[in-house]
């Protein structure tokens, strides 16, 4: 059934369809309408869930961690400084191997205060061991929430579903609302391999020693290093699981694509723009304009940012002349985070083969600075003609 709703509502509907039964909510712009919508569903009885209005984001994720450890399917959402406040818990959730799904409605981080969209908040969490998926439109938001629960519960790793604040969260778009029955068919009730309970008592997440030690059965148990290695191993396996999820989703809902990247006019392109989220759709306008000028360009949206689909990205960009990465965040002190990861993937897979493209990094839209399509097109065009700069180039600065 097609409906017209905003991005936050799309996410909320996804959570409702997935029958999450413990929701922790703390308000922060621009995520707030998402959790408000969930409170409407719960209070009206449309959704059977415990809705907990916590007193901070740190507690929001604490509630989710505890509830998930005891076997519930949980959800919370946040943005910017809320995400930063819960950072300790973000690290905890992945280390504790809990299938938590959290929406991050991307917003600029303080200081100074800024409530508008950029992606610094979620990008700054890329090393935490969470899976990160970026959505470019409302259909992707609702579909990704549903896929996220399936993937998370399969691999026991938490997932951030990221989408741009205001640009997606507050704008209205038509999209297909999946059928509850079909979602139930895709996503069965959460059956954890282990859930904390008096029937099978255990002490979870206690102090580990540097080295291995005998357990109560006299067997050598893993220690911290092994536990952390297995998180990494399972994150890399998630790439395969994501492909399975996409295939299964396609079979039930009749729409699917590449699980990792979303390409537009890239097949015969000499120069490819790369980005995360809604920016890649705006870049399609630039692509069409430049194509009319005879320049063979395309744009590729990266959907899975963590685990990083290095092989898929390298294969897609193999032999291209230029890769131009447009980012709404950066690793301060060096360059865009996606740019670095992408360069590393290209080097890893293509160095010495003669198919290594040159890479250019543009920083746009920081703090919600308006991204004018004409500016994008102009910088895109310049980049196809030769390297603009070795350093990341900021578009739209008004120094």
């Amino acid at each position, binding site marked *: 059934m097609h409906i017209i709703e905003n991005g936050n509502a799309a996410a909320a509907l996804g959570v409702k369809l997935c029958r999450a039964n413990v929701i922790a909510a703390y308000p922060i712009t621009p995520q707030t309408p998402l959790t408000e919508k969930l409170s409407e569903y719960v209070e009206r009885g449309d959704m059977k869930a415990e809705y907990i209005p916590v007193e901070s984001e740190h507690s929001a994720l604490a509630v989710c961690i505890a509830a998930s450890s005891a076997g519930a399917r949980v959800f919370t959402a946040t943005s910017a400084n809320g995400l930063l406040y819960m950072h300790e818990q973000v690290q905890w959730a992945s280390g*504790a191997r809990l299938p938590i799904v959290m929406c991050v409605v991307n917003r600029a981080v303080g200081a100074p205060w800024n409530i508008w969209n950029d992606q610094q908040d979620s990008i700054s969490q890329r090393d935490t061991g969470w899976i990160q998926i970026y959505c470019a439109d409302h259909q992707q938001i609702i579909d990704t929430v549903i896929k996220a629960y399936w993937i998370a519960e399969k691999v026991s790793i938490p997932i951030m579903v990221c989408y741009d604040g205001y640009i997606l969260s507050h704008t209205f778009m038509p999209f297909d609302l999946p059928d509850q029955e079909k979602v139930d068919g895709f996503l069965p009730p959460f059956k954890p391999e282990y859930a904390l309970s008096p029937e099978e*008592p255990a002490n*979870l997440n206690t102090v580990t020693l540097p080295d*291995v030690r005998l357990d*109560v059965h006299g067997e050598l148990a893993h220690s911290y290093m*092994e536990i952390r290695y297995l998180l990494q191993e399972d994150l890399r396996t998630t790439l395969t699981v994501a492909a399975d999820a996409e295939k299964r989703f396609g079979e039930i809902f009749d729409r699917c694509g590449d699980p990792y990247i979303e390409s537009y006019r890239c097949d015969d392109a000499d120069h490819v723009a790369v980005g995360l989220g809604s920016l890649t759709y705006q870049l399609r306008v630039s692509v069409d304009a430049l194509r009319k000028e005879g320049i063979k360009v395309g744009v590729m949206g990266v959907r899975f940012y963590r685990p990083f689909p290095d092989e898929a990205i390298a294969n897609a960009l193999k032999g291209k002349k230029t890769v131009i990465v447009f980012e709404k965040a950066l690793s301060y002190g060096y360059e865009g985070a996606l740019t670095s990861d992408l360069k590393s993937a290209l080097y890893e897979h293509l160095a010495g083969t003669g198919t290594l493209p040159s890479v250019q990094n543009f920083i746009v839209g920081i703090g919600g600075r308006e991204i004018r399509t004409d500016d994008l097109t102009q910088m895109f065009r310049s980049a196809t003609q030769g390297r603009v700069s070795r350093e990341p180039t900021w578009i739209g600065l008004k120094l």
Partner: protein
Amino acid sequence: MGTRNYRRKTSHSEHGPGDGGRTGSWRVERPVLDQSLCIPCKRNKEACFICWLFCPEIVISRTIPPRVDLEYCKGCGICAEECPTRAITMVDEAKFSEEDKE
């Protein structure tokens, strides 16, 4: 080891004694009971058991006579201090032979 069972992917501990090892080795003195002063021993029925109640290590049994598990007793001396008839005294570990210590 080497297993990828979910319980091995997390810090998941099962319960058992002696997490701190043989904590009896921490002792510098051990409790010794004089049954002639011990109230439940004298009455030959359940009584007192203050030593059992206050033992932080749960190594004193609620029996007649109370018995100390020397494997884990840390020698804190609370039982000796709290015993209402001073039936328990703390005695230097050095006074006990190597055999006794095993």
